[in-house]
């Protein structure tokens, strides 16, 4: 089972990212689960969302404390939120940032042999979608960093969810898939 | 104590519905009356106002004469008919056994 935790701010679409991953996995015949952390938070507040993907029926319904993958949709979260908390050894953290990996590494408390994937999702989203909404862009980075599915697998769920603006979101995902850089994390 | 004249639980309708419409017609409210209206058929104008104003449907019209009189099975003896009768044809009298 792969467990993914998304960090974002209310309104940035972290929940949508989690849902798109689950829907794509289910469409491929896998078992998957997506859920938000059920807070009372409103637009702008830090939020969490979770996705589980497995080949077998998923029993657990708890939130994810020890993720295999963490995706951070908003670079400003790094300052206040321990986004890497519980990240499994060998896990991967994907961060939307224009900074370079060594700068980012200093801000994070990473387990041994964790990997860092970085992508300037905000820039890509701005250029491709026209708005700094990074949820679909970050999906590209997530796919690149984990290999759990191919960008093509997300096309149908994205089309269904985004309708007319789906092509731009798919472009953003594909571009992020290409531009994501993965490095080893803590030594 | 068993109440043998009442239905047993097995005999109740689904959801205690009542399937006989208007079945209170079997219930004698005439017992309540301490007064009873007595109508003078000579003075009765056959207007039917007593029938209109009776809360208990206790005014009946004589098919032959058209005059109105009391149905003692239902009449509770309120006296509205006597008070409303435009020709003062009705008087209230005490019920005697």
């Amino acid at each position, binding site marked *: 089972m792969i467990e993914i935790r998304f960090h974002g701010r209310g309104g940035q679409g972290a929940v949508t990212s989690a849902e798109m991953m689950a829907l794509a996995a289910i469409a491929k015949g896998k*078992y998957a689960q997506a859920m938000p952390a*059920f807070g009372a938070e409103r637009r702008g507040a830090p939020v969490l969302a979770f996705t589980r993907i497995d080949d077998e029926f998923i029993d*657990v319904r*708890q939130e994810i404390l020890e993720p295999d993958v963490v995706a951070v949709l908003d670079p400003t979260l790094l300052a206040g939120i321990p986004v890497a908390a519980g990240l499994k050894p060998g896990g991967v953290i994907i961060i939307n940032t224009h900074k370079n990996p060594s700068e980012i590494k200093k801000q994070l408390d990473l387990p041994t042999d964790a990997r860092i994937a970085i992508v300037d999702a905000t820039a890509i989203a701005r250029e491709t979608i026209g708005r700094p909404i990074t949820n679909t862009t970050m999906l590209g980075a997530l796919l690149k960093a984990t290999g759990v599915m191919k960008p093509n697998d997300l096309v149908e769920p994205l089309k269904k969810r985004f309708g007319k603006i789906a092509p731009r979101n798919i472009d953003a995902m594909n571009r992020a898939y290409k531009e994501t850089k993965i490095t080893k994390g803590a030594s | 104590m068993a109440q043998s004249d009442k239905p047993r639980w097995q005999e109740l309708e689904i959801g205690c519905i*009542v399937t006989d419409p208007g079945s209170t017609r079997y219930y004698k409210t005439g017992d309540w009356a301490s007064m009873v209206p007595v109508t003078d058929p000579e003075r009765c104008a056959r207007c039917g106002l007593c029938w209109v104003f009776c809360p208990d449907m206790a005014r009946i019209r004589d098919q032959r004469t058209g005059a109105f009189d009391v149905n003692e099975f239902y009449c509770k003896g309120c006296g509205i008919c006597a008070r409303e009768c435009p020709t003062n044809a009705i008087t209230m009298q005490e019920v005697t056994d």
Partner: protein
Amino acid sequence: MTRRVGMEVSFALSEAVKNCNVDVISAYPITPQTHIVEELSQMVADGDLDAEFIMVESEHSAMAACCGASAAGARTFTSTASQGLQLMSEIVFIASNMRLPIVMAVANRSLSAPLSIWGDHSDVMANRDSGWIMFFVESGQSVHDHVYIAYRVAEDSRVLLPTMVNLDGFQLTHVIEPVELIEKADLGDFLPPYDPQIQLNPLKPVTMGPAGTPAMFTEAKKAQEVVTWNSRAIIDEVWEDFGKRFGRHYKAVETFHTDDAETIIVSMGGLSGTARAAVDKMRKEGKKVGLVRIRLFRPFPAEDLRRILSPAKVIAVCDRAISYGGPGGPLCSEIKSAFFGYSGAPYIANFIIGLAGRNVWVTDFEHIADRAQQLVLQEEPAPYEIIGLRE
């Protein structure tokens, strides 16, 4: 054929309501039930569901309108949660004695105060004695299936009782997961059109909901009690038929690894999944732990529970509600009374978990199993314990 899709559990529920071809929906929005009524509104707006949707001004009116609609012979649906269930509670009790086969999905949520939008079983437990048949489901699939099952049971002429499908707020309602949708065509004659036994109809007038004097009230309640117990046979029959048709087999009490278990965790609703994962883990570690999931809460499956739980040494009952100043959790007190007077009862420990959506982890269930085994060694029976409490 059934179609396997990923969807939010609230939508899987709404799909089933649509496929049941309900005639009237009457509901008032409340978190975490909102996605259900939003989806159903859209279905009606799109013409996918030919029903009257009464957007009432309160849950009290929601249930009252359901009573009117059901009495007029309509297949009727509503959904609520928490404060909403409490507000309509007066009418919830009336619907059952009037034998109106309304189906209601309750997105279980805690009761104020303090105000909480998050899930537990306080709402349904406060309506425990309302005379409704009560199912508890634990996955999107069982939610979807139990809408069909609920209508089939409720409308059976031998039953005619309102039926509640309890699904945990957020932990089920807001989760996306795979569901095999039963399409209308697959449903076949599993759910025949509703043929009302009693109906408000000018061609055959009946009086419904008359005043009951002391001379008949007791008989009316006895009749209600008997029909509620008798519904169990029909529920089993419907589950069996459902299993044959759709391959998913449901029972009043479902078991995992209970045969040789020394410790059995008892759970109800959405947290059963996490409990099952915990039991799997403990089994791998060689611990003789099993799990019982109670799917049917009313009529209460006391006999099934006695049979299944008797061989174990320790039972750990998990409640998501407290009976203040009473015996702890309502589920546990029912299980204890199911055993009272029977010889060879196991030790029964009670744990309060997941109040107002408090996370319950696999490790919590491991702790519950361990703790129950410690408690059995104590001389005095222990009162309930609250899991995850800061003290």
